[in-house]
């Protein structure tokens, strides 16, 4: 593709990263996502990443748009193009620019004496904005569109696509759309008149590889998947970065889940007073036979520990999304991490084991959104889904969402007629009786009017007929059955994804959003002569492939976003015999993983091995 270019041969086409540096609360995100959308509409793979403070207004925020003809979606460590709209961070920002990169900034800023590039242009923001014929109070918001126009002009972004992106954003508010596009045009005009585009090394060209793709963030995808999963009851407590999983439901439920006949809802969303209560409510609902879920992040998950033990032990299906952020404690609430895994796997006192799903893309957020219910109801146990801020709150490119390919599995629930039939057939029912030999009992739910259907649920010791029991044997048998039941999950959870290269002796394992940069890292390593195989874990309990993968490779790098190598620890427990072959490649600084970082570490390590 690069070869076919009609542009000057020195141009870098569709392969660079644009960084916008702004102040939060100034409406810059509309402008920045406009750029991203316009590029996407040109058929070029893009990924956008928002780095924001735990604050509402006035602090630095950064948005990066990566343009990648190869479809790489991972974070890159340096910027090729910078749009600097925050005086406070200019000095630090420019340190991240590649030498010779393009810098656009507000003419009014005082800039560092020396820059790593000669391609730095001051945009007369104030003048251009004041020239616009718009109300004063809107100027600063709309004004951001000026730099969109400048950028479009310099990079060759189709202004029609910019117009389209703006229209998409303002959905029918034509006046606002017009005003914004006008500002962008003004920026473009200014750029044409004042900057020589030929000197700019970066350019974009239409491609067609995003055709049919969508742009969506993981939380919205999770929300939609949940809705298609037939969720009936949601309880939650606001927390970044999980809130918008639920807020998206508030937006989409009225569209998707109004009963066509009566116009009434088939799902209730209750904002709880805290996470203790949120989980309590969904346990009640799950016990009552509803598909029930909540979404939270680390601090909320900590508050759910006791209730998760109850749900495990009373065998109540619930779905809990944990959109991870940086901890321990309140930590960095607006930064990304994958650091709740060990806690989640061991959550609650006593012997417990939890089923955990780990989506690695927006499509999996959608898919696990509905699948989590099938698993939870089939197994009658909580299912935790571990997403993270990077996946959840950033716009990602993906295939269109697929309508669920299997019907809803409501698991083993008996209604009046079932109990009646069992009674007639002389078939014994007990709430915790293992009738089928698969360790999964049958359940009934309140509202079942059959006098033989009722039972009393509890978090204390109980026998197969749900009767209170302190009998040692009864306790032990029940706990053993729960363990057998947990093993059944292996057959139900999503299997890992494995990708191989020829003659690879080394493996890479990741989970969740750390997937994003791995393909790129593997290409980089391959280019250096290091072939790798790759396995992405998608669930706990592990399935056999995971152990086989470790066994097959001389060394396996476990790449993840935390300090303690949490996935590596779980893999060690699963197959200690292979633990000596595992290498911890974990870091936690609040930023997403990059291919450079992975490549560099593996390269160094492998080099050492070869030496």
């Amino acid at each position: 593709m690069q070869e076919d270019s009609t542009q000057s041969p020195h141009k870098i086409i569709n392969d660079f990263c644009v960084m916008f540096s702004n102040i939060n609360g100034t409406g810059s995100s509309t402008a920045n996502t406009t750029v991203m959308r316009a590029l996407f509409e040109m058929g070029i793979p893009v990924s956008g990443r928002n780095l924001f403070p735990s604050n509402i207004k006035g602090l630095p925020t950064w948005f990066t748009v990566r343009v990648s003809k190869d479809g790489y979606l991972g974070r890159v460590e340096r910027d090729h193009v910078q749009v600097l709209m925050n005086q406070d961070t200019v000095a630090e920002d420019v340190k991240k620019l590649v030498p010779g990169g393009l810098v656009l900034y507000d003419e009014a800023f005082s800039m560092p004496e020396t820059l790593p590039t000669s391609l730095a242009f001051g945009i007369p923001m104030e003048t251009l904005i004041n020239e616009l014929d718009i109300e004063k109070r809107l100027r600063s918001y709309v004004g951001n569109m000026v730099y969109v126009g400048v950028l479009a002009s310099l990079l060759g972004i189709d202004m029609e696509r910019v117009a389209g992106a703006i229209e998409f954003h303002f959905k029918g508010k034509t006046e606002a759309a017009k005003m914004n596009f006008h500002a962008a045009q003004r920026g473009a005009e200014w750029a044409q008149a004042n900057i020589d585009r030929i000197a700019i090394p970066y350019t974009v060209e239409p491609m067609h590889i995003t055709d049919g793709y969508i742009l969506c963030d993981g939380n919205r995808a999770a929300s939609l998947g949940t809705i298609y999963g037939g969720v009936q009851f949601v309880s939650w407590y606001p927390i970044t970065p999980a809130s918008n999983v639920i807020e998206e439901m508030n937006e989409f439920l009225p569209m998707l889940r109004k009963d066509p006949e009566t116009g009434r809802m088939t799902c209730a969303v209750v904002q709880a007073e805290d996470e203790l209560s949120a989980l309590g409510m969904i346990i009640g609902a799950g016990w009552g036979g509803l598909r029930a879920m909540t979404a939270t992040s680390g601090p909320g998950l900590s508050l759910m520990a006791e209730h998760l033990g109850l749900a495990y032990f009373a065998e109540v299906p619930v779905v809990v999304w944990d959109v991870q952020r940086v901890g321990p404690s309140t930590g960095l609430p607006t930064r990304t991490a994958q650091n709740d895994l060990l806690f989640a796997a061991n959550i609650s006192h006593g012997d417990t084991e939890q089923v955990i799903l780990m989506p690695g893309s927006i499509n999996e957020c959608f898919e696990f959104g509905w699948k989590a219910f099938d698993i939870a109801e089939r197994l009658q146990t909580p299912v935790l889904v571990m997403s993270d801020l990077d996946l959840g709150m950033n716009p990602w490119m993906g295939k269109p969402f697929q309508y669920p390919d299997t019907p809803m599995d409501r698991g083993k629930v008996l209604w009046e007629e079932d109990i009646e039939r069992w009674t007639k057939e002389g078939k014994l029912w007990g709430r915790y009786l293992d009738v089928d030999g698969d360790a999964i009992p049958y359940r009934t739910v309140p509202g079942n009017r059959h006098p033989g259907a009722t039972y009393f649920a509890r978090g204390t010791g109980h026998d197969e007929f749900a009767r209170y029991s302190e009998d040692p044997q009864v306790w032990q048998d029940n706990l053993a059955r729960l363990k057998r039941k947990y093993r059944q999950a292996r057959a139900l959870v999503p299997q890992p994804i494995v990708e191989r290269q020829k003659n690879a002796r080394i493996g890479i394992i990741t989970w969740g959003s750390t997937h994003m940069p791995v393909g790129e890292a593997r290409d980089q390593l391959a280019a250096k002569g290091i072939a790798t195989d790759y396995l992405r874990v998608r669930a706990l309990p592990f399935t056999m492939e995971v152990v086989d993968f470790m066994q097959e490779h001389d060394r396996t790098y476990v790449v993840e976003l935390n300090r303690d190598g949490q996935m590596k620890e779980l893999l060690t427990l699963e197959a200690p015999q292979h633990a000596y072959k595992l290498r911890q490649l974990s870091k936690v600084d609040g930023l997403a993983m990059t291919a450079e970082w992975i490549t560099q570490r593996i390269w160094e390590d492998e080099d050492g091995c070869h030496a």
Partner: protein
Amino acid sequence: MPDETNDIGLERADYQGSPNTLCKGCGHNAIIGQIMSACYELNLRPEEIVRYSGIGCSSKAPTYMLKRSFGFNGLHGRMPSLALGAMFADRTLTNIGMSGDGDTASIGIGQFKHICRRNPPMLYIVGNNGVYGLTKGQFSATTEAGVSFKRQGTSRYLPVDICMEALASNASFVARSFAGDPKQLRQLIKAALRHQGISVIDVISPCVSFYNFAKNLHSYEYAREHEIPLHELEFVPTDHQIMIKDFEAGTVRNVKLHDDSIIRLKKLDKEYDPTSRWQAFKVLEEAEEHHQLVTGLIYVDPDIPSTFDRYDLVEEPLNRLGNGRLRPPRESIDQINQMML
């Protein structure tokens, strides 16, 4: 002799629970006894009742009644959230939550306050003995200040008044009773079971093993001597209204519940208007000052919308909706994908 049955053909035995393991004489026994009677007399089908509780002797008590109904004995202090979620499953059921003073006023005060605000249709009854029974005699948040126990020292803080808390949180039915006053208790329970929002009944329910000391409010002796009923109280179900007539005018006040059943309040010493939240605060405040046990219907607002009136849900029980009504139609997915940019 044929067994006696109620209008739906059930015997009292059909309302029994599993074998009782509470102490003999425990106030909680009186409470569940009256609940069983009330359910029998109201012709409620046990399978259409759901029991909820937290942890404590009081929270174990529901096990010993209504065995034929569903129930969930959850975590300490967290019954409200569990119950609220479960109630969404089938809104046609009758809900009975039973808790203790520790379960409600210590660890559980947060959830208690919030369920009061939400006003779901449930009886929330507290077996208030002013002590932790099940863990063997520690102070609860309703223990009076200044009480001393050998292994606990002295209780240092002013007690929580559960009725006042319910009132402050806009609970729509607030009552206080005494395990030693079964008649009043049963009438209150019946009314509560018919009220369309949350009905909080704070029942002084002595713990004979750890805190039944005559000098303390939560003992049989003290309560008996200091009980001041606000009124004589009778619940008249919808289908029995004919009986109302035989009352002298002026001495009786009728409060009509949402289902047209009536709480008939016969004036005792003083006039008391249980529909005034403001008077309710006053009567509690005064009782506290004089260390008296005011009992009866302290406050009721029969018409305030319940939790479920605030959600626009389909009428059928949510837990009976077929898959077809839960998963959006296949066509919709394209529309959704179109929106994703």
